[in-house]
């Protein structure tokens, strides 16, 4: 049996209230009032598709670790680098083996599901045993646009293998047709969208049904047998398709529009991950994605589903959201408006790439050391032990999944940050050692001495002069989840 053996997701903490977006843009685009319900997820200024993919993968790999992963499929249309393997950064942050195959996949709204399909193909062919699929998007649109109000930032991750399969892969079909509902030219900031009726009538309703029918026929499954129909699309499109295909209306899956927004290529995997949290053994899941044609896949839930929980899961992240009403944050965090950063922002941030490489276990993987002579745990790992002074006695010690306790902290109004005040402090780790660290995703009053924090891989800063961004680990409030 081959299929999905682990799942996870990630939704950034901030939830921009759509009413605030509509209000700020009412003079410009009064029709946004029609979409002023609910909230959209908004990634912090220090998140991009790489950092979000890392979080979703950690959620998915909870308990498993990454040691068995031998393939990584990373799907996004908002990759920070056009030529530097973005999946390589994800792999480094997850401390995956350097022996793995890793791929960046992009350019299409169905690429998340295509990545899952590619991973299944590779595992089926025996090329890999444990393939990690991650998809993430930072979704922007011009100020005042429908894209801006309806989309959301998110990530999802799945593990494909032959072991402990939760959702058995039954088959998939794909149709590729150069249907342009929208496009984004290479290097362009935004999508160019054609009218919604064109997309719905000629796209969704004409291209998708034959593909889904073909899959069901090939698998010898009747539409009524489908328990979960996952098809990310606006409004009642999925329901209309279900009706056409005679799929039960109850099978149509929540597209998370009210609490997250459309995360594009991530969305089929995000919804799938969400569905797997509550799916019952034997249920059939039909998941499809639209984009220059359509890809559809049929999965059957197994008994193993009861034995897996992601660390927080999509529902855990949905619950951890905090309302955000400052529309300017959406513009600033998405780097859409010039604003007054102050002179302290002018400090040159040219990355030391050679050092990044030689210290990559620490800078990307947050690996420290443990002294074999005296047992002292420390980060960063150095040639001389902070406990006993012995040289070359430290073995690698992973810190990324440690919880930490805040020893001291301060809210800094002086240091430059995109989201002042900047919180930093000394964190003591559960397995020993401490570090003075930046903190992120902090709401007022959450970080005090004694507070519990967890570690997250984030953008350290941007070097706009050289189109580079540096990543490092930060602490954020641990936030207990209903899943944990």
């Amino acid at each position, binding site marked *: 049996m081959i299929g999905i053996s682990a799942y996870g997701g990630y939704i950034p903490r901030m939830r921009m209230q759509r009413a605030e977006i509509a209000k700020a843009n009412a003079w410009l685009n009064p029709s946004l009032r029609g979409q002023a319900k609910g909230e959209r997820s908004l990634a912090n200024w220090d998140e991009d598709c790489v950092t979000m993919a890392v979080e979703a993968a950690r959620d998915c790999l909870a308990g498993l670790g990454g040691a068995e992963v031998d393939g990584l499929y990373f799907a996004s249309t908002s990759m920070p680098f056009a030529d530097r393997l973005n999946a390589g950064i994800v792999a480094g942050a997850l401390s995956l083996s350097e022996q793995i195959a890793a791929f960046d996949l992009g350019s299409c709204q169905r690429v998340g599901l295509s990545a899952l399909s590619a991973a299944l193909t590779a595992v089926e062919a025996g090329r890999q045993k444990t393939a990690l699929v991650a998809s993430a998007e930072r979704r922007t649109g011009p100020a005042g646009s429908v894209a801006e109000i309806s989309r959301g930032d998110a990530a999802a991750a799945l593990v494909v293998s032959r072991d402990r399969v939760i959702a058995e892969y039954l088959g998939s079909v794909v149709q590729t047709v150069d249907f342009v509902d929208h496009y984004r030219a290479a290097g362009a900031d935004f999508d160019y969208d054609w009218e919604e009726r064109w997309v719905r009538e000629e796209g969704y309703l004409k291209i998708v049904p034959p593909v889904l029918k073909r899959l069901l026929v090939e698998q010898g499954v009747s539409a009524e047998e489908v328990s979960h129909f996952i098809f990310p699309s606006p409004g009642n499109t999925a329901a209309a398709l279900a009706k056409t295909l005679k799929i039960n209306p109850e099978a149509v899956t929540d597209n998370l529009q009210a609490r997250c927004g459309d995360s594009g290529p991530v969305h089929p995997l995000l919804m799938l991950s969400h569905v797997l949290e509550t799916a019952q053994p034997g249920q059939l899941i039909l998941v499809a994605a639209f984009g220059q044609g359509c890809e559809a896949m049929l999965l059957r839930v197994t008994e193993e589903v009861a034995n897996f929980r992601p660390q927080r899961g999509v529902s855990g992240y949905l619950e951890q959201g905090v309302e955000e009403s400052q529309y300017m944050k959406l513009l600033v965090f998405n780097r859409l408006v010039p604003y007054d950063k102050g002179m302290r922002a002018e400090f040159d941030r040219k990355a030391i790439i050679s050092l990044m490489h030689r210290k990559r276990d620490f800078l990307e993987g947050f690996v420290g050391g443990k002294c074999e002579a005296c047992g002292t745990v420390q980060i960063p790992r150095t040639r001389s032990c902070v406990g006993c002074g012995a040289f070359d006695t430290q073995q690698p010690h992973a810190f990324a999944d440690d919880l930490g306790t805040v020893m001291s902290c301060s*809210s800094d109004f002086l240091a430059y940050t995109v989201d002042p005040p900047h919180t930093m402090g*000394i964190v003591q780790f559960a397995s020993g050692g401490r570090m003075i660290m930046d903190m992120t995703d902090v709401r007022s009053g959450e970080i005090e001495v004694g507070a519990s924090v967890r570690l997250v891989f984030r953008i350290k800063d941007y070097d706009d002069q050289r189109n580079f961004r540096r990543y490092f680990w930060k602490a954020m409030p641990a936030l207990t989840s209903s899943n944990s």
Partner: protein
Amino acid sequence: MANGIKDKVVILGMGCAKFGERWDMSGEDLMVEAYQEALQDAGIETKDIDAAWLASAFEQINVGKSALPMSTALRLQNIPITRVENFCASGTDAFRGAVYAVASGACDIALAVGVEKLKDSGYGGLPPNPQGALWFESGPNSSAPANFAQIAAGYRAKYGIDADTLKRALAHVSVKSHANGAKNPKAHLQKVVTEEQVLKAPMIANPLGLFDCCGVSDGAAVAIVTTPEIARRLGKTDLIAVKALQLAGSNGFEASSTGWDLSYFLTTRAAATRAYAEAGISKPRDELSMIEVHDCFSITELVTMEDLFISSDGGAVRDIMDGFYDADGKIPCQIDGGLKCFGHPIGASGIRMIYEMYLQLQGRAGDRQLANPTLGLTHNLGGSPYLNVAAISIIGPLGR
């Protein structure tokens, strides 16, 4: 311990520029201002100086690297020159270089100069000061006040002091220094402030408000040192001698291990212990007449009162509120205004502290003169609470 520095070296002359926003002066000009005063005080000429040390911390907007800016500005005569950079403790370290050179017999007369030109940056506060490549890639994005605010959190947690009580004690620290600075014509800030003003000031890095932070100033200070014999030969009497001179540097213990509780400065305690032994002081609370400490932030001063073993552990808040460190208290602290009001041109500060002790011991401190001081201690700290260099000097009349 080796037999130490006590009474081996005396101060021949000192000078200090007016600290502040010296828009009309470059770093080189400020060195000259302090140097002229020191030369006149010492009664010597440039040709008499055998070796010189320069303390200066920042590079971006200052006099530049190496000791050459000093030898050029002062037209030193092709003598050995050394630049010292140990963050904010640079000044005391330069003084140490000059004192040790004289004590070793390698030099008859040595010069220590501290200078910093900070007001050419275009903004308030210090410029960024990365600590090497690995730090640049992994260190937090923090300002100096946020670094020192960590101590406030650790101190409160250890002694169970509520935020308001600590904030009020910190306010008293600053109110006291402003009162002292108001009497000092060379101080950057010469205004009295009230506790209410301090408490209501804008927050810089929680819990440190504007008045909890020292002035960012331009300035320079100079010391000329020699042996007691040479000083007497030059006609000097009532000599002021170095009693102790100690530095202590972190080794990563505070920052990386779990043994430090963030309520004190490990290095200050190490340096103070050695300095008291070197000076022959057993009861600092009874024996010291006055102190100038590194009050970069009010919390640093508060904690330092304990690290110098003057206040008991956890007892600094009470001593401060009791006025123990006020100008009319048992041990006046920052009688010249301190970093808080005299100002903090980084490289100059350590020597500026010694300058005030020297004036006080000679009875030349004007309106702020204390009655019959005998032993003065200076404490100069560079870095952050978790990674720093602490420098302590004790000076007093030769032979006492």
